[in-house]
């Protein structure tokens, strides 16, 4: 922490407690207000989160990256035709537009077990940073397990449930949707994975899905996420369901520090 020249800032003598939590504690004050540095740090985090929502995902670039890895992709779009509509009309974000439906119908759909959907959701940064490396772990693993994959469907302005229509079309057993999560100040690029067994358009609900969330540099790693997903897939195949009745029993490894007890008590 740098001293300001006029000595107007009162530093909090307990600010070292910030090692115990990611929360913004011990920020100090000037008068009763937030010091300049802390104020700008907040604005920076907010700017990153806002840009993550509002800067569109570069689908061409994503497609090129996946092409280079020899993955077959299909570019689709929901019925939300603008970002503002997408934000205000979640219902439209769950439906494919006519062009996309025609695209899908034009494709053969024989013997597909798994549909992978990649949707921009609420964070383009999440998909830009995490989709390709995660897919590069996931796709080979699924192939080793002898699953037949549909082309990876890249969906602009998509909500989670848009995977249902795509899975229905392919009559796929497993639907795996990678989507940008609502960005937080400390996690502007968090990706989520939603898994649905036997997803059906207009029938599946959120209660039929399992969610693996918080995939980003300070959250869940790609490997941990894959372990959780494979656990869910195995369970779903066994019990023929997904959602609230399928529990993720893999351990949650979180970063804990040397102090974990409540130091306010003896």
């Amino acid at each position, binding site marked *: 922490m740098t001293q300001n020249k006029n000595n107007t800032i009162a*530093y909090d003598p307990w600010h070292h407690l910030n090692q115990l939590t990611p929360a913004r504690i011990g920020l100090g004050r000037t008068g009763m207000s937030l010091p300049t540095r802390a104020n700008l740090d907040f604005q920076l985090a907010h700017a990153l989160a806002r840009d993550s929502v509002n800067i569109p995902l570069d689908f061409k670039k994503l497609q090129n990256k996946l092409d280079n890895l020899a993955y077959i992709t299909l570019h689709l779009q929901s019925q939300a035709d603008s970002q503002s509509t997408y934000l*205000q009309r979640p219902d439209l974000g769950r439906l494919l537009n006519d062009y996309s439906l025609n695209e899908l119908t034009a494709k053969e759909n024989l013997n597909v077990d798994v549909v992978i959907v990649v949707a921009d959701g609420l964070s383009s940064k999440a998909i830009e940073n995490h989709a390709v490396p995660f897919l590069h772990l996931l796709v080979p693993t699924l192939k080793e397990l002898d699953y037949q994959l549909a082309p990876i469907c890249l969906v602009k302005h998509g909500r989670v449930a848009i995977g249902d229509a795509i899975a229905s079309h392919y009559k796929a057993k497993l639907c795996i949707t990678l989507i940008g999560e609502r960005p937080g100040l400390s996690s502007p690029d968090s990706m989520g994975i939603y898994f649905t067994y036997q997803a059906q358009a207009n029938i599946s609900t959120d209660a039929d899905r399992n969610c693996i969330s918080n995939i980003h540099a300070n959250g869940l790693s790609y490997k941990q996420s894959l372990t959780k997903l494979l656990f869910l897939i195995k369970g779903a195949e066994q019990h023929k369901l997904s959602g609230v009745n399928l529990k993720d029993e893999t351990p949650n490894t979180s970063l804990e520090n040397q102090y974990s007890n409540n130091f306010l008590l003896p």
Partner: protein
Amino acid sequence: MYKTTTQHLNYHFKTLANLMAKATPARSGDYLAGVAASNNLERVAAQYVLADVPLKQFLIEPLVPYETDEVTRLIIDDHDITAFAAISPTTVGDFRDWLLSEDATTEKLSALAPGLTPEMVAAVSKIMRIQDLILVSKKCRVITKFRNTLGLENRIATRLQPNHPTDNAAGVAASIIDGLLYGCGDAVIGINPATDNLEATASLLHLLNDVIERYKIPTQACILAHVTTTLKAIEQKIPVDLVFQSIAGTQKANESFGINLKLLDEAHEAALSLNRGTVGNNCMYFETGQGSALSANAHHGLDQQTCEARAYAVARKFKPLLVNTVVGFIGPEYLYDGKQIIRAGLEDHFCGKLLGLPMGCDICYTNHAEADQDDMDMLLSTFAMAGGNFIMGVPGADDVMLNYQSTSFHDALYLRQLLGLRPAPEFEQWLIEHQIFNKHNQLRSINTIPDIFKASVEQISA
């Protein structure tokens, strides 16, 4: 019945519910529900018609059927006809005029509260500007008590919200210290648990109970778990001060939250039986927010603000210590931008206060809403001017567990400095006694940790 002609156009609103929705100020959630006015003229036409509707029409024409909705039954069955008698012949428009007049004093408004229904107050709010909402709310006073006294004139309380992404005890304690040393936490020290199960809830309940007891803090604790989880905690003799629950304005929306009136009643009775309050026994903490009914597909064609006001009928039944409208949490599909969030927060406060509820506001936004800190400052300032009972205190305004932005400890100090608003008297005494605040409602300017927390903080090496 609900007809008007304006600018050579005829408007015919089929039902009172339809009229209410068309008269409501523009809101993304009402467009999403397909109930909003299709243009500005239709909205104003509806407002003219609504202004001429007698208040008693709301008793005759329930907006959600009495037979199928227990919230409607609660509203109708508990309506105090004697209190209502004073304004019984009044129309919505005349009611607005009366509320703004000198005749509507604090005493008269308090006496009237049981005679008002959520639909009546929602209706009048739709034809009021922001300054009207502020002025009338400011005249209402709702005082509640548990271990301190909340809602007194010229005071504002804060909920200390020390959330942590994994409920880590040391992390939670660090945020509690930060909040207390900034003078926050008189409304409640309330944690949203990262996982809603009995084990996590129990350990956090013990943590807060032990801290409050050890440091003799005149405040109350709450873990914001589902009411069924808290009930189990009570059964297992785990210390519970306040029972928390999210509530909504229709039976179906409440069912989607896994609750009904009977369950809330059971929880209320259980908390009362513990008798843990020292100066009073208001022991419920409710949270609400416009849009929750639609998001559960349970809005019955009503606009979201009317649904929200109906939730206050549920709250009122259980004499809560705190009712918190979490105004910007739900996202832009319900409240699109700062303008909509600001008005919604002030409407909720106004409606709740007129109905006799201790209203606070989680002045907040998500990162996909068109809002920023400037918008929050506008709502924060106007909410305090309107006499709001409490706001949130989140470290640096950034909730690292729920991923949204609320108000900070600094924000509370801003209000104390700007408007001279003090904490609850018992809590203020504690702050002064432990040299956190001076007698002038200010943080003391010292570079040492107050004795009460010194040893604890020094256990953690810098």
